[in-house]
């Protein structure tokens, strides 16, 4: 017997909404007696849902980085204005002397989303091959840190979407200087939403459940 007692091993579960620990047997009502939420031992179909959302995010990831996110034009432009992509936005900040902002946008828009894909894939693969002993593998503790990190940083990638929204809303001098959002920002926003949903659907307890 391991020194640690896990709820599922002794037939208990914690309500995912109010946290009340209670017996998990299927014969009783399947809603929590305290908060009436539907009870579940683990998040339903966690792995397949997470993988599906992960793939959906990856599909959007390419157009999000290739297509323009914003279009700007100013008086005297002969070529009808400029399109900027996520990466060209970072470069522009760097070149105009705002290195801190360039690094910030680089973190939020490029590093965090790509890290999310890699880490989520690693977690999903690891959870797919569960330990047969039921012993808590040391590596799972490390994986869990990564998972919490993803949960915390996930929504910060929305930063670029909000910047595009604000800039295009305020730069509206008809004929002199105008800015418009472009389709790339839609894909980028979808990447953030899909990866956030993938993270939420993942149940970290699967990392050390017995097969």
């Amino acid at each position, binding site marked *: 017997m391991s020194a*640690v007692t896990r709820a599922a091993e002794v037939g208990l*579960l914690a309500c995912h909404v109010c946290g009340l620990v209670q017996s998990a047997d299927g014969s009783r009502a399947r809603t929590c007696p305290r908060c009436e939420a539907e009870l579940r031992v683990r998040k339903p179909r966690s792995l397949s849902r997470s993988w599906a959302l992960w793939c959906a995010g990856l599909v959007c990831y390419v157009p999000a980085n290739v297509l323009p996110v914003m279009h700007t034009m100013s008086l005297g432009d002969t070529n009808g204005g400029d399109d900027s992509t996520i990466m060209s936005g970072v470069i522009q900040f760097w070149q105009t002397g705002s290195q801190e902002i360039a690094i910030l946008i680089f973190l939020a828009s490029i590093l965090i989303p790509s890290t999310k894909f890699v880490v989520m894939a690693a977690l999903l693969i690891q959870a797919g091959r569960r330990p047969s002993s039921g012993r808590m593998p040391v590596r799972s503790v490390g994986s*869990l840190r990564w998972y919490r990190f993803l949960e915390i940083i996930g929504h910060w990638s929305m930063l670029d979407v909000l910047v595009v*929204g604000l800039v295009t809303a305020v730069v509206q001098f008809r004929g002199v200087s105008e800015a418009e959002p472009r389709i790339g920002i*839609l894909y980028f926003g979808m990447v953030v939403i899909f990866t956030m949903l993938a993270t939420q659907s993942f149940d*970290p307890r699967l990392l050390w459940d017995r097969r």
Partner: protein
Amino acid sequence: MRSLKVRREVDARVQEDMRQFPDLIACMSCDTLTRRPRLSRAEIAICPVCGGVLLRAAKSVQQLAALSITAAVLWLLANVMPMLGIDLSGRHSQTTLWGSVLSFTNHLTAPMGVVVALALIVLPALQIGILCWLSFFALAGRRAPLFNELMRAWDGMHAWSMVEVGMLGILVSYVKLKGLFDVDVGIGMWAMAGLAIVLTLIVPRDVRALWHQLDAAGAA
């Protein structure tokens, strides 16, 4: 060794046909059972196995109510007052939070307008409204009408309410525009900054603590 005791205790109580264990906590990250500790101010309980936060000394109901009301006032200001304004050769242009939502809607990017409206305006408003409602009844030691539904709704919304990200977005936009125009910062931005701080102070565990607090109050 302490967990061994927990295990024996659970086995004994299951045999007595006990179904609920309000004095235990199961870690949401690794499912380890521990006894619910009594925490004093600013203490947190960490899972001995995976290091996740199990429990945090919750804010008092008074603090929660005060923060909710503050958030409501700031939300109103952040939405009504202009955020950013720019000047270009005598012409002035300014935008509110709502303006940046509308800016997406004229184009193919319209769905992002919905997302921004939800993340920065609608969900924060609902969250603040729910908090005011719940905490005012909690001040009287009562569960508000629709307590269960609203607590669950609050929980589900939390991840998608992004005022603090919006705040950073405003700062970045400010820097971006500063190179090209004369930029002025509106009252809306200061209100947004305040709102970001207040909403960051109300962590999910403060709200979830109401389940236990009001349960215990009702039972006593």
